[in-house]
């Protein structure tokens, strides 16, 4: 199988090393190698590799570049918060640490091209240089010209350079509407079950045999493959549950080959893991502690989402309730809810056509500060002076992200807010202050 990778211009031994490190990606590596050609040959200007998360895009590129010792610059687009960082990293890895200092303070694309050409004339490329850009989909958010320029960088700088873009999305979503140079597209398909098995089995624990670990992975995939095909998540799960799997072995009850008994032992734990760990509710460290503990104690350790209770000052609670009412009730109905002598207004009378759908389905609506305060003063049971602390509580609710400010920060006059909490949350809050919020909600009338 490893003999597959053969390519003129590269060392046989190295290619062998590459093949060993890239299980189940031989076809793609072969393809890439033939695209790249021999080191001194000009390569295609730009290649886009796309495929789902954890399908080995970065890994393949990384191994190829490292093992074959090709001149390259790997840039993560998340990291490049400004174009300057991108340029600097490329220049740094191609021409050494002096090159970036030639760039002006906030460089433009043409500055980069100029510096590149200048450096390139001093040290021309003997073999193809590669710029690998991870998470290339973020390039769409930057200046529109950057992507098109990168795609034909070879032409711009007149050097043997190839840009390889790695992305999770297909090229169709990239293409700028002005049109641009079309890169070569290369798709990395998802790993199949047997491939996952093969890859995961490589992380074998040093004190156990490969066959044993492989059997463990087989069991694990049997449980999780139907819900999760992400290699990273599966590797995480494998690491978590392995110690539990080995437990009967350590106690000397079972032999390594007795897969059935091991399966019986581990199955309930994997089922439990399916409920909790997939969401990373508890950290892996805590999970291990939990497994070491006895069953009855384990209940004490609760996941992240179990803690939803928030303790708030008294008036903050009422402000939040008022905000919720303002967000989910139409403004016209305020009279019905908060006026003592509102007369008899039935729901059918003021039901407009578009309001027939539940307001809770539509989500919170923005409301002005005045309305919030008016509702607040009518729901709070005691007389409250409009002090500065009431107002500051509103802004601290915004910082806590329980309210969201809709209008711009600069707008001091009549700011608008939205309530950002769920019905369950607000019900819990109003229960603590003995306020029956459901009675005041238009949807539940």
């Amino acid at each position: 199988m490893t003999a597959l990778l053969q390519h003129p211009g590269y060392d046989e031994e190295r290619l062998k090393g590459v093949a060993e490190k890239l299980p189940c990606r031989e076809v793609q590596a072969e393809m890439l190698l033939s695209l790249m050609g021999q080191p001194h040959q000009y390569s295609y200007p730009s290649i886009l590799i796309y495929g789902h998360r954890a399908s080995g895009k970065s890994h393949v590129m990384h191994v190829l570049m490292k093992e074959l010792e090709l001149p390259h610059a790997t840039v993560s687009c998340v990291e490049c918060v400004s174009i300057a960082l991108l340029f600097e990293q490329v220049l740094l890895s191609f021409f050494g640490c002096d090159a970036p200092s030639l760039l002006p303070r906030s460089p433009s694309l043409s500055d980069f091209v100029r510096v590149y050409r200048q450096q390139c004339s001093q040290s021309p490329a003997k073999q193809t240089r590669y710029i690998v850009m991870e998470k290339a989909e973020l390039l769409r958010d930057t200046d529109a010209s950057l992507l098109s320029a990168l795609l034909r960088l070879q032409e711009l700088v007149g050097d043997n350079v190839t840009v390889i873009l790695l992305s999770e999305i297909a090229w169709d979503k990239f293409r700028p509407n002005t049109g641009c140079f079309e890169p070569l597209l290369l798709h990395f398909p998802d790993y199949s079950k047997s491939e996952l098995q093969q890859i995961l089995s490589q992380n074998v624990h040093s004190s156990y045999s490969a066959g044993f670990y492989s059997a463990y992975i087989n069991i694990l995939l049997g449980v999780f493959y139907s819900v999760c095909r992400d290699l990273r998540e599966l590797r995480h799960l494998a690491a978590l549950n392995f110690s539990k799997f080995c437990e009967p072995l350590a106690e000397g009850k079972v032999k390594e080959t007795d897969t059935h008994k091991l399966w019986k032992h581990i199955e309930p734990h994997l089922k439990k893991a399916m409920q909790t760990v997939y969401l990373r509710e508890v950290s892996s460290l805590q999970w291990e502690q939990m497994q070491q503990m006895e069953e009855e104690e384990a209940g004490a350790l609760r996941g992240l989402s179990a803690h939803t209770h928030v303790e708030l000052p008294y008036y903050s609670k009422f402000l939040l309730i008022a905000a919720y009412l303002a967000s989910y009730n139409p403004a016209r109905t305020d009279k019905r809810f908060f006026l003592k002598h509102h007369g008899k207004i039935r729901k059918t009378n003021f039901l407009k056509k578009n309001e027939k759908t539940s307001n809770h389905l539509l989500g919170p609506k923005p409301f002005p500060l005045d309305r919030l305060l008016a509702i607040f003063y009518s729901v709070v049971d005691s007389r409250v002076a409009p002090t500065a602390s009431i107002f500051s509580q509103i802004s601290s609710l915004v910082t806590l992200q329980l309210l969201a400010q809709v209008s711009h920060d600069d707008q001091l006059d009549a700011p608008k807010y939205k309530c950002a909490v769920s019905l369950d949350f607000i019900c819990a809050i109003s229960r603590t202050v003995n306020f029956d919020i459901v009675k005041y909600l238009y949807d539940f009338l």
Partner: protein
Amino acid sequence: MSFFATESYFVQGCEDAESSETRFRLCQELWDKIKTDTEVLQDELNRKILDSLLDFTRKCSSTRQNSDWASQMRASEIPTAALMLGVNIPDHDMTFQSLSDMLKQSVSPHVASVQAKECGGKGLRHQSEILLCSPHRLCFKCPRVHRSVHCSLGILCDWYAARTKVGAQTTVGKKRSSQVRDEQQQPPVVIIFKDLEAFNPRVLQDFILICSQYIDRLPLTFIFGIATSPSTIQHMLPHSVSSLLCIELFQSLSCTQHLATVIDKLILTSHIAFKLNGKVMQVLIGVFLYHDFSVRNFIKGLQLALLEHFHSQPLSVLCCKKKKALFNVTQLSKPNLDRIRQLPSFKRYVEKQEAQEQVNLMTDDSHLKELCQQLIKDLHKYHKNYYPILRCLHTLTSSLPRYPLGKQARVLTCFPFRMLAKGELVSLLQKCVEILQLSKSKKMKNALVQLEELLARFKQLDKEIASRWYNREGGGVLNQTTLLEMNESRRAKRLSPFENLRNEALKFIDNLVKSHLSPPESQPLYEVCYYSSSATVRRHLNATPRTSIQAALSNPYHYLQNDSLKSEDGTVSNAAPDICIAYKLHLECGRLINLYDWLEAYSTVVLAAEGNDPDSEHFGKVDEVKHARFIRAVSELEFLGFIKSTKQKTDHVARLTWGGC
């Protein structure tokens, strides 16, 4: 320098200038004591959580360095501590300060704190840039490699590698001078996010993604400060990001517990001479419970009360340690002695004395001084007895259903005790004994002896009853229901020995409480130690901007103190500032105000103020200056939010407030 500066501020406008210096000193001393006490207290309260956090960071860096299979598999995760702090954001600063100090001391020199507001800026990219720079800028003092190179984690990694290399060499050179350094060849880089909720989720996600790429080279550890609930992490970070973290949860003490401890240790003790009376206390606790949950603000309120007390009450020279107070009594000046005679509590005391004594006290200064010394001693004794008994009462009542007794409850209703089973009663009394043992005063010791005696008798009784019940019913434990049955059946009958003893115990406690828990207002000279002006505290802590603006506009004399502005009820004098006149006039209008009418009315008022003859030729004509003044007043009102321009009618403005004439 600053000390003298503040002192001169204090002396300015002080009631009694002579003693102000001493009072300032006393105030300063007390405040220093309160401050250090609270700091110590806070450190103690936070110790547990901080220690566990330190353990966490240490453990993380050690697991990273050892190479067993499990930690290798987990190597790509960034260890993260989610620190739940509650919504009292002002208090968090102190916690984070001590956390980062402790981390720097014992775990790693590389600790950075980041705050969301530092990472503000236009556009996501800009914000992330600031966030990336912040670890460099704030803590590591990383020298930039090249002037033009931007901050990035790559550079930070290089710096870190160089730094640890140097560190390793020097420690070897020093022949393993410190054990700690040796263990920690690679101290973790800790980044503290002080307020997770306030961060822009996108920025945070990007930052975590970037960090995870360097985790193999840079041992990062995150600490998230969370104010609301841990589920915010899940709201902010998608699975692809949160799977890069290995989150562990740490719950800090709730703020109400925190406050309870502070009150317990600072206010309900006799160590600190300065006291708050019930109303002020209510204001402070009200601010806490209703508005902010912030212990720091509570202590600020306490400081305000302290300062106000020493500033406004000349007799506060006596509010200090007993010895010093007794000395200060001898130094009292004549006016101050007169002030003592004016004190309501002292007057009440004098009225109870005999006629001759009354005259003596009113005329003879030296006699008064002697009496004051006695009274001060009594007051201190009262405090010494008051707090232990209060605590006893609290322990006795806190376990009773629906019977929460605060500080205000001073009369013990004996009824609920009838419900208590003996076992509970004995254990409660035992707790009281423990409390009383802490106190040193004579009376308390006396009470302690009596209480112990009672307890001994209870135990004695226990044995007797046990043997008797054993005979009758074949072994039994007294529980609440059987006791109640017994109560029912024997109401008319002879009381059992247990009931007798219980009544005795109740009587004893009742007496104790009645004699020692009299309200502080009943003590003569209580004004010296108690600060009672709750209105001042409320005014200062609970600012009401709207009310003060309205007060300023409708009654300018309140702030300007100019006699010409003085006016009878509700009306504004003609000489008032323009804006006041315009405000007053606008109150008379409806929802829409015609600007021209308003201007006419305004100019009439101003002309009258200038003393022009209403019948003269030029009267009623508006000159340019007045016009300009009017426009300025109107735009000021608009700025204050009383009116706004409207499109309904041209040359009209709309009123935004209701009410008026």
